[in-house]
């Protein structure tokens, strides 16, 4: 069902955890589907210096969370805002059709975290 890349990110998720005093926090969730995703950012000079996630969700949800953190790390926030759901799914070599809404969540959570950063830091 899942690609090797998905299973790799699922079984060895990158950047799991929380950041104390994060510059931006984004949470998206859909209790009925059961995905809740939280992303924490540390930003310096508009660059994402650290990023962590916590996710309640299926294999795809965890893998997309992990992948999005890897993709966003080191990018400027404007670059990170360009990251799309499709790009995350593609980076994982694709997701099963019925799971595509999970990949939406990962990019959404990142965008929420950046939005939160901009609001709180007036950027």
């Amino acid at each position, binding site marked *: 069902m899942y690609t090797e890349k998905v299973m790799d990110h699922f*079984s060895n998720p990158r950047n799991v955890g929380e950041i104390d005093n994060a510059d931006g926090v984004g949470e998206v969730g859909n209790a*009925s589907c*059961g*995905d809740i995703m939280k992303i924490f950012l540390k930003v310096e000079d508009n660059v994402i210096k650290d990023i962590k996630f916590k996710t*309640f*969700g*299926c294999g795809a*949800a965890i893998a997309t969370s992990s992948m999005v953190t890897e993709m966003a790390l080191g990018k400027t926030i404007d670059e990170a805002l360009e990251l799309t759901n499709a790009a995350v799914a593609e980076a994982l070599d694709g997701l099963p059709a019925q799971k595509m809404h999970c990949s939406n969540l990962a990019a959404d959570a990142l965008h929420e975290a950046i939005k939160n950063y901009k609001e709180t830091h007036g950027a």
Partner: protein
Amino acid sequence: MKRIYLDNNATTQVRPEVLDAMLPFFREQFGNPSSVHWAGRAVAGAVEKGREQVAKLLNCSPAEVVFVSCGSEGDNFAIKGTVEALRDKGNHIITTKVEHPAVLNTCQALEKQGCRITYLGVDADGMIDLKELEAAITDQTILISVMWGNNETGTLFPIEEIGAIARKYKVRFHTDAVQAVGKVPVDVQKANVDLLVLSGHKIGAPKGVGAIYIRRGTKMTPLLHGGHQERNRRAGTHNVAGIVGLGVACDLAGAQLEECAAKMKRLRDKLEQGIREQVPEIKVNGHPTLRLPNTLNVSFAYIEGESLLLNLDMKGIAASSGSACTSGSLEPSHVMGAMCVDVLLAHSSTRFSLGPETTEEDIDFVLQELPAIIERLRQMSPLYNR
């Protein structure tokens, strides 16, 4: 890698005796039982023997057994065949919110055709209320359809009592016994059922064969029209090998019922007890005592079912989940929903279903691996605060 199969409610391995019995019917005895020549005669007896074996397990007459292709076909036939045959009598069906989709989606399809369906709710243990059932009966009621044992939680319904109520009001009674057969005693006479469905692959027979008990005198419109097979009740060339396998599986199920149920129950209880002791914040779903002996459904707070399944799978442990994300639908299990299990707990509900082959070592291994997996997933969860 060790492989531990705790998903016997999804499907079972074909038992060796069953496969052995089936093998001659693919090449040597390949005839069509409806044929009059040697090739047909050689297999017609085998089909009738299978029918007798099924009948014996259910305590009915062989003429009351009709072979079908699976549990889903049986349920569709039971319900749609009743609706068609009893059109003049009424259009109301009483069922429960926790039936298998083969019943629920059939009822929903019939609603669009003008049937009225009462879906009985269940309490926190997944149990229906017989008073509510009785009160729902009207003079338009043509069918009560209540499963014998629930596939997700294992909760066993009071089939004899329901049968007595159905009898009292002269309403036809169908039970989906796909999960019950082979795990608890199933006697259609005692239970007063008119229609009962079972599926081969849940009891060590192959996939692609099942049976429906149709009480003598129960008027049914066929679901499959065509040839004269099964005394005009189910058209289609007989799945001879499958029927032979189903017969042997029923024989084995009958002979080993008590012993096998006791063994599964002991191991299931050990698993439940072990999880309770080692993992905090869990919830066992289903009725505490009126439960299939092989089924344990547990919710692990803060984690999602599919990711648990995948982690178990990486250790070679096969289980199943009521999580929406597993099934590809958007809603978590309708059974958990009906029991009013908190939606997040519903997403984490995980089913371990044992089989006759399950060993003590299997259970020990699960108890050894599970706690660390749960802890790791909880550490990843935004809902868990430690």
